[in-house]
């Protein structure tokens, strides 16, 4: 049995999905967190159920991938039962989609989520009355606190039924729908969509267009407008019957500060730069402790054992790999994810998007594109996936470049571990400044040469919420455990392979080969350029490799400050990591990947060579 969770963006579908299935899909407080289809299985009373978390949509009659996906599943009856999740605070707007879903006649359960927030906004919802009007069961939940979600599955299985509620459309629309259904063997919702000009059957669309034109001539409004207006008015009536307004608690509206140019933009700058500074400080403090522990309790005793050379090389490599992972990457990445999670859950990202709209227009994007870019500070892979939020191919193309250039947390590790530690924290921040300038220039350039249409921002503001400590820690932990299980073994294995290659002189050969280019053009030692190559696998591995090849974590003893700075900036800019390349390929196709990769490689080399020229 297949159960689908359907609802508007940002109503808590993913949170409920996680609580039902025990899986951990991404949950955030901005619209559009779930882009694809997530499926999980759950056993209830010794029966197995498949639960689908569908992406949030506002209606079924759009042409975005998400709308088509949900619409297709309903049309082909792929779902046996639908759990419609509605935001109790914004019931009227949410009912609009619900009425459309209800037309498909599937068994329904209505979940009024965010019941805890209705009180704060001064309303109360009569769920029994709503259930009576809709003709299907309604339950109230507050998924963020885990309240009521236990009831969802039992209620759905025992009492879900098709809704009896029906939107009364204008009589011309009803007549047109009857006529389409008389001529073609389709269901009512398909006929309605066809009248709005949506569908796959060309013959039916053609005859619908004729009827639609007639209606438009008479009403001076297109059928789509009439149908939507009918649904909205009906939603208004139903909401009016079940919602009682009470006195709204007077409180300070934070948005009075956050969405104003002043102080909103300074606040945004303080938040972003503050996060970087705090991550640097906490990260390097933790790093100091962990590296000291490794050096004095593991590496030193191992060296004093006097093992045979090959064995010693291997065991040292394992230790250095571990050290690079736990000692350098872990403190920065974990701290970073905690802050990114807080930002995601607070609803602040949509405010940042609103404020950034004007600036983003200059680089050919709009405000909403700031969300992938901020996510990019965490990890480029989910950031590239969220590029799908953008409507046109032109915007997605430009965003692919810009998002890949944003220093992700792995690159932060390099900036922090090399520049902040050895050269100085302000020099580390200057790398962000350089990258920022390059991003702007790239955007200005691309927005001029990229063909295609430009859409503006239409974005629902997520409500501001205090992030739940448990949710933030869980989410950060899930991301960091991904790092520990996927990246750490890779780091250790590659460290061992590096050690072996070094032992057998392969690295030396490559280093000799790259030597002229490295020292002449980039001005950094050849082994450092060799280390850069490992950044293609994972960005932080470049640092791991550098430590192994230099033979010491105290990099300032083997390289000058300018060399360290140059090395860091090249590895930040040049080549997205292999996972980014893969996800970019899936999202945008081969051409974009090749362009992005070539561009970043050239950019890295040019900037590196430029620094070498300026400070020989």
């Amino acid at each position: 049995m297949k159960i689908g969770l359907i609802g508007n963006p940002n109503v808590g579908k993913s949170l409920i999905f996680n609580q039902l299935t025990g899986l951990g899909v991404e949950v955030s407080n901005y619209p559009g967190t779930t882009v694809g289809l997530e499926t999980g299985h759950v056993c209830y009373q010794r029966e197995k159920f498949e639960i689908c978390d569908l992406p949030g949509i506002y209606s079924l009659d759009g042409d975005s991938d998400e709308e088509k996906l949900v619409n297709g599943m309903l049309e082909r009856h792929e779902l046996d039962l639908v759990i419609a999740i509605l935001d109790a605070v914004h019931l009227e707007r949410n009912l609009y989609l619900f009425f459309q879903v209800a037309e498909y006649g599937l068994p329904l359960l209505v979940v009024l989520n965010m019941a805890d927030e209705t009180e704060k906004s001064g309303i109360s919802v009569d769920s029994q009355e709503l259930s009576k009007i809709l003709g299907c069961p309604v339950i109230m939940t507050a998924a963020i606190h885990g309240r009521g979600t236990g009831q969802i599955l039992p209620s759905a299985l025992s009492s879900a039924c098709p809704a009896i509620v029906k939107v009364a459309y204008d009589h011309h629309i009803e007549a047109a729908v009857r006529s389409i259904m008389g001529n073609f063997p389709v269901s009512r919702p398909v006929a309605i969509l066809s009248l709005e000009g949506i569908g796959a059957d060309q013959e039916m669309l053609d005859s619908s267009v004729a009827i639609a034109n007639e209606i438009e001539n008479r009403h001076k409004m297109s059928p789509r407008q009439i149908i939507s207006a009918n649904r909205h008015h009906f939603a208004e009536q139903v909401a009016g019957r079940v919602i009682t307004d009470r006195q709204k608690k007077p409180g300070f509206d934070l948005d009075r500060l956050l969405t104003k140019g002043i102080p909103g933009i300074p606040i945004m700058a303080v938040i972003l730069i503050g996060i970087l500074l705090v991550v640097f400080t906490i990260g390097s403090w933790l790093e100091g402790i962990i590296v000291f522990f490794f050096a004095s309790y593991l590496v030193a005793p191992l060296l004093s054992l006097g093992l045979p050379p090959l064995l010693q090389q291997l065991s040292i490599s394992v230790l250095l790999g571990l050290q690079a992972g736990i000692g350098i990457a872990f403190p920065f990445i974990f701290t970073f994810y905690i802050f990114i999670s807080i930002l995601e859950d607070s609803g602040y990202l949509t405010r940042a998007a609103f404020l950034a709209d004007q600036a983003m227009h200059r680089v050919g994007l709009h405000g909403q594109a700031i969300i992938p870019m901020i996510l990019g500070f965490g990890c480029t892979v989910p950031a590239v996936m969220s590029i799908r939020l953008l409507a046109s191919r032109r915007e997605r193309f430009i965003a692919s470049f810009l998002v890949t250039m944003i220093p992700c947390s792995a690159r932060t590790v390099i900036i922090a571990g090399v520049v902040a530690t050895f050269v100085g924290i302000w020099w580390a921040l200057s790398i962000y400044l350089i990258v920022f300038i390059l991003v702007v220039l790239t955007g200005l350039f691309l927005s001029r040469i990229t063909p295609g249409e430009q859409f503006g921002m239409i974005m629902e503001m997520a409500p501001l919420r205090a992030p739940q400590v448990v949710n933030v820690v869980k989410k950060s932990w899930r991301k960091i455990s991904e790092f520990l299980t996927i990246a750490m073994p890779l780091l250790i294995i590659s460290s061992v392979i590096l050690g072996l290659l070094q032992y057998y002189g392969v690295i030396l050969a490559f280093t000799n080969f790259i030597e002229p280019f490295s020292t002449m053009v980039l001005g950094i030692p050849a082994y450092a350029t060799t280390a850069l190559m490992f950044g293609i696998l994972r960005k932080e591995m470049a640092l791991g490799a550098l430590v192994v090849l230099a033979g010491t974590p105290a990099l300032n003893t083997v390289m000058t400050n300018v060399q360290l700075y140059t090395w860091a900036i090249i590895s930040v800019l040049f080549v997205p990591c292999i996972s980014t390349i893969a996800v970019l390929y899936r999202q945008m196709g081969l051409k974009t990947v090749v362009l992005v990769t070539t561009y970043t490689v050239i950019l890295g080399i040019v900037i590196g060579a430029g620094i070498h020229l300026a400070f020989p």
Partner: protein
Amino acid sequence: MESSEREDYLEAVLVRSLAVQAHTSAKDLAADLSIGEETVSADLKSLEEQGDLVFDETGALSLTVQGRTIAERVLKKHRVLQCFLGEILGMEDHAASDEACVLEHSISDTAINRIGNYVKSAGHRRNWHRGNTSYNRLINNNIPNPVASGLVPGMNKIPPAGTSSTPLGSTLTDAMESVPLAVIGITGGEYLHRLIDLGVIPGEVVILKRRLHNNAVVLQVKECDIALSPEIAGTILVEKM
């Protein structure tokens, strides 16, 4: 005298006052409109009797509030039509202007509003990044605020009549914050679908919660806050409740 003649006179006086700011006499108008001086003098007399304009002791004439209101409305219609005929339909400048001279008297407010919004949104689609479309430059910026510019004697004391301060077809980018607004229509075709889904439909009452200096707005619709780019806010027509 026919109302179209009256409108032509008043419009001509307004255009002169905007262009040269010097005083206008009956003779000047006769030259502008290519009509005999006697006829003009007689017509101006009757306009003075109707309370549309006043002569001072030197024989220079200026518009009253009533006269200026009518003149501004006609001039705006003229410019909307000229812009539509010239920029959208591609007519020659002087031909568009001549045509507009005839049409401006009979066209209804509703029709001119719709044409204005169409021109505006077409301009937005073409020039969104410049912020100021040719429509805006042509229609709104050329008519200075009569009180501030002191063009109309004695206007400082009299509050401007309601009609003259309301621009033809105001969009969200001209609206004030925190005032309930009724949506009249949406002109930008490609954004229509998502806006409709979110409840921005004709008749809906919305509140403008925030407007940045670049005209990006936060709009409260059905208890939800929605952020819109300037080029989208500019396609939503509203009127004050």
